[in-house]
């Protein structure tokens, strides 16, 4: 860039006028995006939340907890949390949160689940996106799932140390 243009950009008068206009438009766009995301989120959260409450109400949650208990024990998590992980891996984080919220886990367990899901989530949506950029999506998918499980076990060991 030539030096004249650069000094020009540093001057407040030249920057501020166009930006004030853009900020209002930008923020409005952001707000509308937020609204549409919230609508999508409500559509996911309400059914997942109600189904989990229903399962809990019918006493099925203990059964599910018993089935997945030994496997989830690797991560120091109660068996019911398998439902949270499945919802997060296949659907998205909002679904995972809708399942997690009525189960009332301890902060440590929530942190473990959040980290595991942070590393791998919405795999059905995000894998096609990585594919579109033209890189090997399958290897990334495997890395994410393996990392998620490994980190869950590692965090469990760390919690035991402290």
């Amino acid at each position, binding site marked *: 860039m030539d030096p004249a243009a650069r000094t020009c950009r540093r001057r407040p008068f030249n920057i501020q006028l166009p930006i004030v206009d853009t900020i209002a438009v930008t923020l409005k766009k952001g707000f509308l995006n*937020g609204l549409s995301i919230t609508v999508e989120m409500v559509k996911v959260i309400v059914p997942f939340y109600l189904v989990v409450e229903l399962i809990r109400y019918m006493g099925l949650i203990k059964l599910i907890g018993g089935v997945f208990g030994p496997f989830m024990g690797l991560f120091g998590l109660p068996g019911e949390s398998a439902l949270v992980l499945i919802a997060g891996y296949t659907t998205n984080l909002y679904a995972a949160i809708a399942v997690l919220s009525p189960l009332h886990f301890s902060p440590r367990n929530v942190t473990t689940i959040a980290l595991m899901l942070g590393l791998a989530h919405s795999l059905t949506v995000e894998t096609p996106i990585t594919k579109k*950029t033209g890189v090997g999506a399958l290897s990334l998918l495997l890395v994410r799932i393996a990392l998620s499980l490994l980190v869950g076990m590692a965090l469990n060991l760390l919690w035991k140390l402290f």
Partner: protein
Amino acid sequence: MEAVLTPLFGALRLCAQLFLIIVPLTMFYEFVKSRQSSLAGRSRAFLGISGRGLIPLFTGIIIGLTYGAGVIIHSIRSTDIGKGEAFLILLYLSVCHAIIEDTLIFVVLGANGLILVGARFFLATLLTYAVYRARLIRGR
């Protein structure tokens, strides 16, 4: 009746909490999107990712893969970023993306945000660096 209303109320309260997190964030995201071209001037490489690669990288870390997909796909395809570099970018992003939103929505339920952010940045950097180094060694 109460058995239906109480969970419904709980679900809606959760939605309201998430709404309060998401709307400020999407407004912030739009702001970042409108500004991100200023990153293009930077040329210092980072973990084998060049200056051009920093645009999709930062977009992904802050905004996320789903919401930032347009920018990420476009900026990788429209510049001459090679396949190897694109893989490094997406490897980093696979582990570490939408860092603000993903963390905050779990903090609402009691998670430790510092651990979440720290671990994801650490793992993503470690993994990307390992693949980058491994390639350098193989390339020789």
